[in-house]
């Protein structure tokens, strides 16, 4: 069996596990709609004094939060296999090299997250009035961002030996991604320490690029500062976090 085919098998298994429960996808979309349609609209109505639509400002963040939840399910799967189901040792006896296995788990986490957030990405593209090519750029942002969170989730799952610790790390990461980023407020309004932390937050960079995408309805949000280095920065951050996740997951595979 070729290496790529083995990786595909691992990814396919993770997809089967994840999508075995169709209700989960619906529930995650409802989650996104509550974030966007309840909190987004309410905060947008409350902050009408701003020179831009606050609803449009926070809209991509709702989708990225859904991506965070979906990507963290990868870590949850890894953690359950290690601690609750005790199936990791069995999985490692399968004819898949350990490195391929670890990378495939991360890639499946990214792909599951991108598929889960696809309806949300479509909603954001419609709200921003993005053309199809820029919608595809939006998908690429979701892909790269999901890599960062999948890396974090697998890293957490590899280190935590109790559900409590894993849940704590998950929750801490979600708080960091949401509140120490530009999801709710521009970096110019932040105290220096929050602004400094937000520079190392993949959410900040994903949002920056999303808001700058040239659409018909998000003109007031755009500053015209979009350039490829921002994308490179997001990709580098994501690659670094995935590498950390990979290393820690690999460490759990050694006796």
């Amino acid at each position, binding site marked *: 069996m070729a290496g790529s085919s083995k990786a595909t098998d691992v990814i396919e298994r993770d997809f089967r596990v994840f999508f075995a*429960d169709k209700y989960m996808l619906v529930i995650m979309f409802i989650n996104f709609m509550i974030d966007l349609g*309840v909190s987004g609209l309410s905060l947008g109505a*409350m902050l009408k004094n701003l020179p831009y639509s606050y609803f449009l400002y926070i809209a991509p963040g709702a989708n990225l939060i859904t991506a965070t939840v979906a990507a963290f399910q990868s870590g949850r799967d890894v953690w359950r296999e290690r601690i609750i189901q005790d199936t990791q040792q069995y999985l490692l006896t399968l004819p898949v090299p350990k490195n391929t296995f670890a990378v495939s788990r991360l890639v499946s986490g990214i792909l599951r997250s991108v598929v889960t957030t696809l309806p949300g990405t479509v909603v954001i593209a419609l709200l921003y009035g993005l053309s199809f090519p820029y919608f595809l750029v939006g998908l690429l942002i979701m892909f790269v961002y999901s890599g960062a969170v999948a890396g974090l989730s697998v890293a957490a799952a590899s280190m935590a030996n109790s559900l409590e610790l894993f849940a704590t790390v998950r929750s801490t990461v979600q708080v960091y991604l949401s509140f120490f980023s530009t999801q709710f407020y521009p970096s110019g309004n932040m105290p220096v320490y929050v602004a400094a932390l937000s520079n190392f937050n993949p959410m900040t960079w994903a949002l920056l690029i999303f808001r700058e995408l040239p659409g018909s309805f998000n003109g007031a949000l755009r500053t015209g500062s979009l350039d490829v280095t921002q994308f490179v920065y997001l990709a580098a951050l994501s690659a670094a976090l995935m590498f950390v996740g990979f290393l820690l997951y690999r460490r759990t595979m050694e006796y």
Partner: protein
Amino acid sequence: MNGKPSTLSVIWVLVERDLRTLVRSPFILINRTIFFLIQLFVFAALVSKLATALGFNYFDFYSVGAVVSTITSIAFIIGEDLFEEEELGLLDYLLSLPFGHSLFVIGRALGGAVRGLIYVTPMMILVAYVDGYFSPAGVAGSLAIIFVLATGISGLSITLAMLIRNANRFDIVIALAELATVRVSAAIYPLVFMPRVLQPVASYSPVTATSDLVRSIVLPGYTSGTYETVVLLLFVGVFFGLGSAFLFRKIEGGRFE
């Protein structure tokens, strides 16, 4: 010695057991405290800077909502505990102990609520302090109202734990229930700014009722009364009943107690 323990001693044993879980869970305590402080001093402080034309102080408004949403979030944990006990096969043992299932639900819901109250008491005191409210009786009254909400949310969480069998789905449903109960309420924004279609739903929310009752105690210019109290008590009654009924159905195969 009489073989059957008294109702109060059973409830105390169940509450004490959940309190011991609290002591053994320092990570959750630290995490929720940090989350609360970040909500208050980062999120609320920064959004308040943007919300300059509201006619009221958003930071003060949000500070009370942050305590109410934190207790809501903590009270949901009891369902997660039950789900884990069910996964590990421990729940069947617990339900075989010599007391009724309704008592079990009451004990666990109260355990969850007391645990939540211990978490949020320092937070409530901090909020009263930053909002310039210094009456110990008022703070105690606010905590009593919060405790009633926590009991009902614990009942809701237990009901969900009894209804759902898949671990991944339970995780997502609990997160959704937590999100919906907090967001479709006046905890973090006034009802008037919510989409019109949701305003009637949010006005029946126990989280709205609790937030309004506590704000009317701690913050000047806010009022609430009988309506909010009735909504809150009805919520607690309904989810005590449902939690108990679903536990019974799970064990006894379909009938309600």
